[in-house]
């Protein structure tokens, strides 16, 4: 956690801190599932850093495998959404500074 990369910003001379760690905005999962989903999302986004679609696919498939169907995942830099989900099965987090990942279950 907290692995911040310090990049001196040229204009104004002040330090700009770029954060890449996983930041959970909203999550109502149980602890075990939460850590699992966080790790999984982070791994997927690191692995498919250039292709959000495959990252989302990987998250979805792995979550299906671990916690049963049917999971949905969104990975993207800018989008809006309104979803209905089974309670205790939603995680919404930021990762890598510019990605928003939403993982939820709704069968």
């Amino acid at each position, binding site marked *: 956690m*907290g692995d911040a990369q310090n990049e001196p910003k040229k204009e104004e001379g002040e330090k700009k801190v770029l954060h890449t760690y996983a930041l959970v905005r909203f999550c109502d999962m149980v602890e075990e599932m939460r850590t699992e989903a966080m790790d999984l999302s982070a791994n997927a986004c690191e692995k498919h850093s250039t292709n959000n679609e495959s990252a989302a696919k990987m998250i979805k498939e792995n979550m299906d495998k671990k916690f049963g169907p049917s999971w949905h995942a969104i990975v993207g830099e800018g989008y809006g*959404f309104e979803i209905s989900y089974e309670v205790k099965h939603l995680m919404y987090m930021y990762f890598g*500074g510019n990605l928003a990942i939403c993982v939820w279950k709704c069968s």
Partner: protein
Amino acid sequence: MPRSKGVLRPGTSVLKPAKASALKLHGPQAGEGSRLDLDDVDVWSRTRTLVKPDDQLDLDENELKEEIARVLTVRTPQLSEGLVIWSHKDAAFVQRSVPTSGALLLDMPSTCLHIDSQEAREQAAYLGAAGRITLAETLTMSAKAVTFKKENRRGGAGGGAGGGGGGGGEDDEEEEEADGEGDADGEGDADGEGGEGKERASISEGAGDAPAAAPGADASAEKPEEESADSAAKKDGEDVAEGGEGAGEQAEEGDEGGSTADAEGEEGAEAPADAATEAFPSRPVKKVANQFNFCDRAALTYNNPYRTLSTQTEPPPRDVFSDQVMQWIIYDAYQKDWEEKQAGREKEVKAVPKQFGRQAERKLDERTNPNSSLNRSIRAAKTIERMLNQNTSDDIAKDCRYYEDGSDEFREGAGTLLPLWKFYYEPTKKFHVTNICWNPRYHDMFAVTMGYRECPPPCYLVLHRMPSGDQPLSRPSPCAVEFMKQTAAGAVCVFTMKNPSYPEYVLHTASSVMTAEFHHEQVNLLAVGLYDGSVAVYDLQLSQQEPVFRSDSVHNKHCDMVWQVTWGQDTPDGELNLYSVSNDGNVFNWVLTSSTLHQTTVISLVLDKATPVAGPDGTTLTITGCGTAIAFHPTNPKVFLVGTEEGQVFKCSTEYTSMYLLSYSAHHMPVHRIHFNYFLPDIFITCSSDWRIKIWEDGRTEPLFVFDLHCSVGDVQWAPYSSTVFAAVTLDGKAHVYDLNVSRYQPICVQNIVSRKKNRLTRLAFNKKHPLIVVGDERGTVTSLKLSPNLRVKPKATKKQAHLSPHDLEVLKMDKLLALVREPFILQRPPDTEQVVE
């Protein structure tokens, strides 16, 4: 065999009975006939030129006429039998099964037993039909055999077997009745005779075909996988009953009206019929279930009605979530989170050194913190315990509060003590109660010290020099503590009246606790004197076992047990201090500094300074007294009285460490208690093991009152509500209450509190607010007692005294009494001087 020779049976297959019967019509004669017919046609069509192959056999007439039976077999002779095939499964050559020319169209297992089968024999044996034949002659067969025999005898022509079965059955029926009944059993007696005959015929139809195949199949049917009907047929063919079967077949043919069957029928039936007659047993055959005699029974059970039940579970709860993702939203979220994290980290960094610096304090805080989860649950448990106790001892609580002994009205100058709760703590039941002390603020709370306080051991002698006499006197020392029990532990139990079942606080100590006193201001502080000579101060608020202050165990302590501790007035600096008196003859003053007890010797009790005792080598020896009791003057905090084991009471001042203000030869035995009157500060009371209680006035060496209780007095206390009332406990288990205003000679109440044999009373304490006393005994138990109204009579103000306060009234009351006893002294001095002046 004429039969096998003559019969041409092309339809050997049992599967084609119709064809078989049709072909059977053409006997050998018929076949011959057809051959002749062909010749005739040839004659008609052309001239008789015989064209024949060159290699044709030339047969003479006889040879040509010879009959050659042509036999159709089920086997294809061209097929080679020894065909083998390589089996990859078994890794060997296996015999290849020869394809059969037959085909199985219908296979229906029968519920009947075959007469020759093992089961049938067993059944027969079971039913008692003895002999070789057994049930073979099951009814059908025997019946038929008999029928045909008769027919044959008659000539066997005409109506044929069918007629015999049908029409001819009429007269035969009676004969056969016994046999035929088996059939009838199954089909019912009501069956027509003709019907029965037909029936029989049709039954035999199926069976009859089988033997027809027999001659062809007999030896060649080696294949076990051949259908069972076939094998059954084989057996049939060899069987005695075969004739019967054959006859059955004939009967059928007869039905159809085939007259050609006559000869054959005769032929076929003859031999078997004979055999049957031979085989047929003369005795009546037992009717048994047989191949064709059975009935089916069926029952249908009630079908339970069906019912459909369905349920539907609630779908898992769902919720709706929506958000919008923008790059700036993500950025802001990260920034905010990061700031929060930084702030948290700074706080942590700040908090860390503090923690280390004040670890000890934090520990205390944790314990005292009323909000810590442990304390909260303990508090809840305590509340519940109190509620339970209130419920269980509800009557006692009401007595304590409201009950007044009504009989006191009719009893002049006498009262009673009403026992209320008994307080004890199971682990300390073996200890003696060494002291009792009420809390000055919480009137329901009192501390009980537990330890061993051995009272007069009979054979323990100490040599003492009496201060008054000039020769040493040997006498028992009643206050000596048993040395064997020296290491025994002790405890302080703080009870409250609200919870008689369990002490509010329990403090365990390594040594016996001899005394304890609450501080008058800071009531949570409890000063404790121990058997090993040390003193300690506990803070009950901390609810911990360790004292907050404790004297050093080596140098900073008494050399003998501490008999009493008492809090002194705070020093000018505001420091708390306490005084302790010990058996070693010293009175120490202890000042509570920030962390330690600072000790100063107030006085060393020397019995007789003027005449030191001569030692063995010309040395002199001063004998110190053993302090047992101490009491401070109520109005002059510098003056105090010390009682000793030798019976002396010294009046001392904290200002002078080496001289007494006065010394009283109060008792002959250890002084157990010195107590100042609550209303008159110059009046005090002492008690001792010499059975006596004495009331003194300060400055007067002779006692004002002396009471002899005929037993060692453990404790005496003035009542806080009256100037003339005091109570005492004696070792024989009695509590005594005196009211000087009522009687100067007799107690107004003497009551046995504990059994005299088993127990002794040691200490006593008056509650400052309620009319209650608590007495402790040698079994770790404290009994609370309520004083009846007669024991706490208030002085009535006369008209003149109406302006006086109750306090003044009490003083007046006592003064009046004292005037009686001290009059001579007063008369002596002041008037004389006045007179001189005048």
